[in-house]
């Protein structure tokens, strides 16, 4: 190609691009100002279904706004997608992501739009607002329902083993597990191939920790507490160790997966499965009447209560401005409204209470575990530690698998985790580390 021709072609191209631009700007106002915004959500079936339901209902109510939904991977890979998009300023207008400890790593006061003064924030419950507050900015609305961390139990298996009621103390739980084992079922389901599932006995024990030590979260964040030396916090680690030592896990616990765990608690192949209640919708409908849910009991029956998890939140990226910002705020207001929770529950099934003041009511027939959760939420509850402290070490799942597979003791594991959180605290630049 000779250079002269290249220059001509380039000139022509530039001219036509400029002309197109002119056309675009002159046409835009004539189109009744339809604003298109983008929304990035994770690709788990429940999040995708719920987001699609909300988008459909929102567009019906706001014909001038079009929402384009895209998905990203879940888990650690998804964390990196979100961080990279925010850092390179290529994030969608609206995106959904965890609330609590993981939010701090997004540098929210700089990368997200502060919603503190928006009218719709008054309908978001204060307990959720504190999970999306960072350096004085309140940056998200709840996308999903409150969850509990506790133990699913198979009701027919409990009956067959002659267990009456549900355990209200840890010792009652152990004796129930022994009865289950004597009756020939796997007492407690371990699914450590998905190592995150090993965390429940420790994370869901936090209600019991805070009952003993109300200032725990603040002291832990300030590096004044080491888990290995704190008897209350160490208990969760010791519970894991005890269950392993008594042989109450299934023999293939190290290679079983989360999906195996769901199938086994549904069929009664195992009697108890420590898990978060988001799993209820994964239990086959035919088995939902057989699976109940209880909080993780502590040492005393009088303080029996539930450790709760906050749902993910919808955020607006700081790169969003002008008409798109107005439209994005409208979408968030919709998500936090009764109509938004109706759309969520319709698309995904009712999973539990939402975290907004005016919300969808529970339908007449819900799974047994969802009913149990609702009853527990109205009793004593404590948010999980990750919603009270930004300090969460990344190796907790693997360390707990080490304990649950008998490679290290509870105290050694807690010591390892104490070391593990140091890197996290330093990365966040927290004081006192």
């Amino acid at each position, binding site marked *: 190609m000779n250079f002269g021709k290249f220059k001509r072609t380039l000139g022509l191209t530039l001219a036509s691009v400029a002309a197109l631009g002119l056309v675009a700007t002159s046409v835009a106002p004539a189109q009744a100002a339809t604003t298109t915004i983008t929304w990035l959500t994770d690709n788990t079936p429940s999040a995708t279904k719920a987001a699609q339901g909300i988008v459909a209902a929102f567009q019906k109510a706001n014909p001038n706004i079009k929402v384009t939904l895209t998905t990203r991977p879940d888990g650690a890979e998804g964390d990196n997608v979100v961080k990279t998009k925010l850092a390179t300023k290529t994030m969608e207008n609206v995106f959904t992501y965890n609330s609590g400890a993981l939010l701090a790593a997004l540098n929210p006061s700089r990368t997200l739009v502060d919603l503190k003064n928006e009218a719709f924030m008054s309908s978001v419950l204060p307990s959720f607002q504190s999970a999306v507050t960072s350096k004085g900015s309140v940056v998200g609305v709840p996308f999903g329902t409150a969850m509990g961390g506790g133990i699913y139990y198979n009701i027919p298996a409990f009956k067959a083993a002659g267990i009456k009621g549900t355990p209200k103390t840890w010792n009652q739980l152990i004796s129930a597990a022994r009865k289950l084992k004597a009756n020939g079922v796997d007492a407690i389901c371990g699914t450590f191939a998905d190592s995150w599932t090993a965390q429940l006995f420790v994370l869901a024990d936090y209600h019991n920790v805070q009952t003993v030590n109300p200032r725990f979260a603040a002291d832990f964040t300030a590096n004044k507490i080491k888990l290995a030396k704190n008897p209350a916090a160490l208990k969760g680690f010791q519970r894991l160790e005890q269950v392993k030592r008594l042989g109450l896990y299934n023999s293939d616990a190290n290679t079983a997966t989360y999906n195996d765990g769901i199938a086994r608690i549904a069929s009664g192949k195992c009697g108890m499965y420590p898990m978060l209640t988001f799993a209820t919708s994964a239990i086959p409908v035919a088995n939902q009447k057989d699976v109940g849910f209880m909080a993780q009991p502590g040492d005393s029956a009088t303080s029996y209560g539930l450790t709760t998890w906050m749902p993910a939140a919808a955020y607006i990226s700081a790169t969003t401005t002008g008409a798109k910002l107005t439209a994005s705020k409208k979408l968030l207001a919709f998500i936090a409204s009764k109509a938004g929770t109706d759309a969520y529950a319709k698309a995904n099934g009712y999973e539990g209470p939402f975290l907004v003041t005016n919300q969808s009511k529970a339908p007449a027939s819900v799974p047994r575990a969802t009913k149990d959760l609702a009853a527990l939420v109205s009793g004593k509850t404590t948010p999980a530690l990750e919603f009270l402290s930004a300090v969460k070490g990344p190796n907790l799942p693997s360390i707990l698998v080490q304990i649950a597979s008998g490679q290290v003791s509870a105290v050694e594991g807690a010591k*390892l985790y104490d070391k593990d959180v140091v890197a996290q605290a330093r*990365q966040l630049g927290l004081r006192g580390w």
Partner: protein
Amino acid sequence: MKNKLAKTHLRTYPLLFVLPIGVIFGTLYLFPTVTSFYYSTQRWSLFDTQFVGLENFATFFQDPFLLGGMINTFIYAFLTSGLKVVVGMLLGVVLMSSIRFRALLRNLVFFPVLVSTIGVGITFQELMKPQTGLLHEALSVFGITEMGLLGDPATALYAVIAVDVWKGVGLATVIFIAGMATIPAEYYEAAKLDGVSAIQNFRHIVLPLLRPATNTVIILSLIGGLKSFDLIWAMTGGGPGFASDVMASLIYKQYTSGFYGLSTAGNVVMFVMILILVLPLNRYLSKREVEV
């Protein structure tokens, strides 16, 4: 003057051929490698960086799981490398001899090299699963652990090593076959006249003249083993606990936890470690090569 120009031309002319690959190498390998030295001294959150000196390296070396990971890395690298040499050479000898279905067998041995590592990992994970896995059921005749090969902290790493060798030995075999094909027939004929046995033949002709091929296999599989990650990640995720974690998987976990500076420092450490190990080894091995 003209002569001088021609000389410059002669000197720069070959460079033009190197330029395209040079640009690709520079942008995709050299630039990231050099910048990684910079980022290893930063606390990097993707949003901003802050100079922290050698703190990342200090944190990296204080990692309580590093020592176990390093030991596993060496076990993994030396075992896979050694097994690939031994098994690959035996297969090479067998596949050079005039046996039936030689072409078919050569293809079968090489086939696993072409399959996706992640695919192989997931397949063997299922095969080794207790209660449902075919391989587990077959091996349970010999009384292997109820936890499954991948579920038992004592066997998980070795189960992955076995699969790595199965998958990679085809390449070693091909290198050995190529090496044996370059040995001139005269040596064998001369040996035949002297009446040597098959074992002496192998010991005194094949083995020494195969040294360049052996060295290639050792170096390639050792480097591959030292930085191996994908198969381990697909089969065990480093577990149970940290039982099959190697340096690369530890670094990957730091990266996914958002410790970008720290994981970059880890990569720099691994880079230097592989250099320190492989460069002298390579020099030592090349010295012992003999000319055909």
